[in-house]
């Protein structure tokens, strides 16, 4: 998957979690926690959704890298390079 495809995939996960939010205006450089008020339960959900959908395993020490859309895509790019969109 390209970084653009990964962004779409993460956005799809977020849309599933925060169904009442409009994510069209999401700023990739601002933390999810600030923009969407996601809490630790929600971060665990992003991790589990990635595992469920793409079999991507994210170790706990890497959770901070999922802070914003920008950092998440950057972190996932090498991990998901071989996955077809």
């Amino acid at each position, binding site marked *: 998957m390209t970084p653009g495809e990964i962004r779409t995939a993460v956005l799809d996960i977020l849309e599933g979690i925060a*169904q*009442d*939010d409009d994510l069209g205006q999401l700023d990739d450089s601002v933390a999810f926690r600030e923009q969407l*008020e996601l809490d630790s339960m929600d971060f665990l959900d992003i991790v589990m959704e990635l595992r469920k959908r793409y079999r991507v395993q994210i170790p706990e020490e890497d959770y901070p890298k999922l802070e914003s859309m920008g950092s998440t895509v950057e972190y996932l790019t090498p991990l998901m390079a071989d996955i077809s969109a």
Partner: protein
Amino acid sequence: MYDTIIIGAGMSGLAAGIRLAYYDQKVCILERHTTIGGLNSFYRLNGRDYDVGLHAVTNFTPKGTKKGPLARLLRQLRFKWDDFSLSEQVESSIAFPGVNLKFSNEMDLLRSEIASCFPDQVDPFERLLGKIVEYDDLNQEIYEQSTREVLDEIFTEPLLVEMLLCPLMWYGNAREDDMDFGQFCIMFRSIFLEGFARPFKGVRLILKNLVRRFRSLGGELLLRKGVSQIKLDEGRAVGVVLDNGDEIEGRNILSSVGRVETDRLCLGSGASQVAKAGQLSFVETISILDRQPRDLGHEQTIVFYNDSNKFHWRRPVDEMCDVRTGVICSPNNFRYSPDDGDLADGVIRITALADYHRWGNLDEDDYRLAKIKWSDQVTAAAIKFMPDYRRFVIDSDMFTPNTIRRFTWHDNGAVYGAPEKILDGSTDWQNLYLCGTDQGYVGIVGSIMSGLTIANRYCLAP
């Protein structure tokens, strides 16, 4: 072999089931009763639907709110805010002799009521609010502080203390006389800082959404399948035995039947365990009126009343019921959307404290007579706090501690379960965890949160 077996198809069990099935676990929910919902269920009589538990959904926050338990559970369950179709309350009150404190989903109403009825308690009340906002969930030591001691230090007006305790104890206190401070904070937030709401179609709408979602994710829901034993092997739970003798194996077991009741499923019956069970049970008389309650001048959603300056929160000892305090709820008095209009029937529900043992020991005829007698007495006590509606009643029913026992399987028909909660849901056995009432959260939103929290922590953590 299941990944997780869940005992009880109430709100917490269904929520946990959705969460686990969503993440591809093989999950089965076992329910002894013929219907789902546990304490928050419904039944049909003479062509009408009656709710059992739900007066109102607490923890209401408006659409778009991102913080708080309601927003959090919607995200966890992948529901939209609109899926629960919540309509806000009109206005509620705490009614004591000569003093009436109104409150709504806007905190400022209660604030101004306190300022006008108890002018010298305004600052103490703000101090209490500060403490409640600061309160950190899930710290067992702070949780178990005495609320009465905390409030007596803050307030100099004992009547206000009783008035604040009344609704919060009614809606979620399993302990007699006093309340755990943690539970008080949770209830205060859910009722006074967040608020009341109800789906036009009642609790069945929420239950139907939960069940439909659970099944669509491949979860199995089995009704009329009571669990008679939890099978143990070297300190760990490995499965369950059903009432019919069938055995089912599971890697994890979540039990929503209560703490004492779960211990008994593991250890067999023993008299010493029953002592720790809760004591507080209710009767509720439900009257169907030939008109809307507002047409007879009753516009409030919920009235918590008490007939003296001292609020007594105990199992009745001399009588089958204690009618000195009660809750008047009218499901009509919510702000339903114009599309829904009014509920077809006017409904008044009145709840009073009741003694499970006295109710449980009646034969069928005496039970029927007791329902009539106590329905009359409960109503007579309540109409001191609302217009007399008795001439307009066209049908009625009463649920009793026996009903609550049948729906929840809690010892003593204890509405809010055992007085001592296990906030982390742990038990003496590995792979067996508590969810629901005895984990510590109450109400519809609370019990759903309980199921989610315990499922996440023990059955899903990577």
